[in-house]
C-alpha cells in the first residue's frame, strides 16, 4: 500500500497545481471585485448575458445532434469493414485534425464568403449569392466540421465490439433491419453515444474562434464573452471568472441531463 501511495505523489502534485489551484483561483476571482472584497455582483451581472448563454447551448446542442446523426452510420460502416480498410478510413477521418484548427476554420470563411468559392459556383448556374457567412448556420457548420471526429471515434470503438453473430442472431429471430438497429445496435452503442455527446458538446459550447470567424459579430457565444473579459477592451477577469464558473455549471447540468437519457430516448433521437 505504501508503495502505491508514493507512486501517486507526482499525480497529486500535478492535480494540485494544474486543476485544484486554477479552479480555486477562478472561484476566488468570481466572488471578488477589483479591490479584492467579497461580492456577488459578478454573478448577478451575468443575467445580462442570458441570450448569449441560450444561444451557446442551442447552437452546441444542434451541432451535437447533427454530429451524432452523421457519425452513427459512418462509424457503423467503418466498424464492419475489414481491418486494413478500417485503418485507412480512420486515418481519413483523423487527417484534417493534423492541420491547424485556425487554418481549417479560415478556409471555411473563404468558402462561405459572399464572393467566396461556393457563391461563385452558384453564380455560374445563375443562383445566389446566398448569405452564408456570419450566420448561425455557419457557426453550426464550423462546429460540426471540427468536432465530428470526436463523435465518430467513440462510436466506432464501441461498435467494433459488437459481434457480427449478435446481429445475425437478431435477424435470425425475425428482426427486420430497422429492428436490429433499434433493439441491438443502438442499445449496444449507448456508451459510445454518451461519450461522443460529451466530447462534442463541451468544446462546442465553449468555443470562441468558430463563432468569431464564421458567425461575425452578431453571434456572440459564451466563449467569446469570456475571452473579451481577459484579453479584450472590456478587461474584467472577475466577470470572466464568474462566466466561466456558470458555464461549468451549465455544462455539468447538460451532461447530467444527457446521462439520464435511456435507450429509448436515444432511439427516438436517431430514428
Amino acid at each position, binding site marked *: 500500500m505504501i508503495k502505491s501511495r508514493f507512486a501517486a505523489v507526482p499525480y497529486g502534485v500535478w492535480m494540485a497545481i494544474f486543476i485544484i489551484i486554477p479552479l480555486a483561483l477562478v472561484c476566488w476571482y468570481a466572488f471578488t471585485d477589483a479591490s479584492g472584497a467579497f461580492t456577488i455582483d459578478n454573478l448577478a451581472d451575468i443575467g445580462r448575458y442570458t441570450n448569449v448563454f441560450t444561444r451557446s447551448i442551442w447552437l452546441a446542442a444542434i451541432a451535437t445532434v447533427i454530429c451524432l446523426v452523421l457519425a452513427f452510420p459512418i462509424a457503423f460502416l467503418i466498424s464492419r469493414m475489414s481491418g486494413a480498410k478500417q485503418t485507412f478510413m480512420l486515418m481519413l477521418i483523423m487527417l484534417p485534425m493534423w492541420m491547424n484548427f485556425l487554418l481549417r476554420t479560415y478556409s471555411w470563411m473563404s468558402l462561405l464568403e459572399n464572393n467566396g468559392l461556393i457563391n461563385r459556383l452558384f453564380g455560374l448556374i445563375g443562383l445566389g449569392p446566398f448569405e452564408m457567412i456570419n450566420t448561425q448556420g455557419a457557426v453550426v457548420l464550423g462546429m460540426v466540421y471540427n468536432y465530428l471526429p470526436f463523435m465518430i471515434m467513440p462510436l466506432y470503438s464501441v461498435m467494433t465490439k459488437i459481434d457480427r*453473430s*449478435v446481429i*445475425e*442472431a*437478431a*435477424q*435470425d429471430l*425475425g*428482426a427486420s433491419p430497422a429492428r436490429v438497429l433499434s433493439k441491438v445496435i443502438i442499445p*449496444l452503442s449507448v456508451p459510445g453515444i454518451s461519450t461522443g455527446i460529451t466530447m462534442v458538446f463541451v468544446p462546442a459550447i465553449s468555443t470562441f474562434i468558430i463563432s468569431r470567424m464564421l458567425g461575425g459579430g452578431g453571434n456572440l457565444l459564451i466563449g467569446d464573452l469570456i475571452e473579451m473579459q481577459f484579453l479584450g477592451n472590456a478587461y474584467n477577469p472577475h466577470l470572466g471568472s464568474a462566466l466561466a464558473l456558470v458555464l461549468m455549471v451549465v455544462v455539468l447540468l447538460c451532461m447530467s441531463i444527457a446521462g439520464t437519457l435511456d435507450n429509448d430516448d436515444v432511439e427516438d433521437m436517431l430514428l
Partner: protein
Amino acid sequence: MENNVIVRLENISVSFDGEEVLNDFSLDIHDREFVTLLGPSGCGKTTTLRIIAGFLYPDSGRVLFDGRNISSLPPHKREVNTVFQRYALFPHLNVFDNVAFGLRVKKLPEAEVKQTVSEMIEMVGLKGFENRRVTSMSGGQQQRVAIARALVNSPRVLLLDEPLGALDLKLRKEMQTELKRIQQRTNITFIYVTHDQEEALTMSDTIVVMQGGKIQQIGSPQDIYNEPKNAFVANFIGESNILNGVMHDDYFVEFAGAKFTCVDKGFRQDQEVQVVVRPEDIKLVAPDAGMLNGIVKSTVFKGVHYEMLVEQAGYTWKVHSTASEQPGAQVGMVIGPDEIHIMVKPEDKAGD
C-alpha cells in the same frame, strides 16, 4: 413417409475469393429428423448451415423450404432459428429478455410472451435465473439460454452450429443427451453441425459426412460406422486399418497376404478394393493360431482398452484389446467375416 422433405438444397455452389466451398451440393433433409453435418473444418458444413439460415446467398442453386423456393428470402423472414457457435446472446439483455426477443419482435401479447418464455426457461433448466445478466453466466448456462432463445419461437427447423464446442467434456456429454431429449420432445427438425464424430454418432438419426464441399456419405450412425463408403469416412469416423485388397469373388477377398471370407458382394471379379478393419474388431490370439502373424511394436494404455501397434508384412495394424501384449511379442490375429468392410477404390469409381 420418405417424401416429407422439409429442407431441400439443390445444386448449391458457393465460393469465397475464388475458392470453391460448396460445389454442386444437393441435400434433402426430412421433417422431424436429427441430421448432423459432420466433417473437418473447412469442409463446407457451416457454410451449408448459413445458406439455410439465410446469412449467405449461394452463387447458384436453390434452397427449398417445405417445397417453397426461399433462396432470396432474408434471414428474418425464414422459419428457421439458429443456435450459434459462441451463443451470440444479447449482452445488454437479461436471460428473460434474451429468450423473449423473438416473440416480442413478432409483437405477441406480453402475457403470452411471459408464459411461453417462462415455460421455455424451465424446460432448459434455468428457472430462477430470469433476471440474471447473460454476461455473468457460465458457458453451459449461456448455451441453455441460446437454445431456449431459438426454441421459444417454435421453428420448423433448428440449426445448431457446433453449439457444444466451447464446453468441457463432461458438460458436453450432458448437453448431448439433453439436446436429443429436447429434439424428441419438441419434434422439431434439428440440423446440427459438428466436427466431433462421437457427438454425431450419439445424437443423430442421419449423419451427412462432408469433405471438400462434397457429401462423402449419408446414412444412419450405424451405417456410417459399420459400412463406410470410402477411406475418408472410415478414417474420420472412428479409427481404422485401411488396406488395399483384391475382391476375387463374391464374399471372398484377399489382403495383407491372406485370403478371407467376408459379407460383401457385387464387385467385378478381381476388382481392386480397399478394406477397412476397425481396431476393436481384431482378436489377438497365440502365434500361428490366427489368420495373420505379427509382432507387437508398442502398447499404450487408453483407459477402457490397450492400443497396440502390430507389424505384419510391412503394414502396421492398430489393435484395441482389453488384454495387453508386451512389445516384441509374437501374436496371431483373427478377423471375422462381419468385421471386414469392403470399399470401392477411389480411382476405380468411374469403372464401377
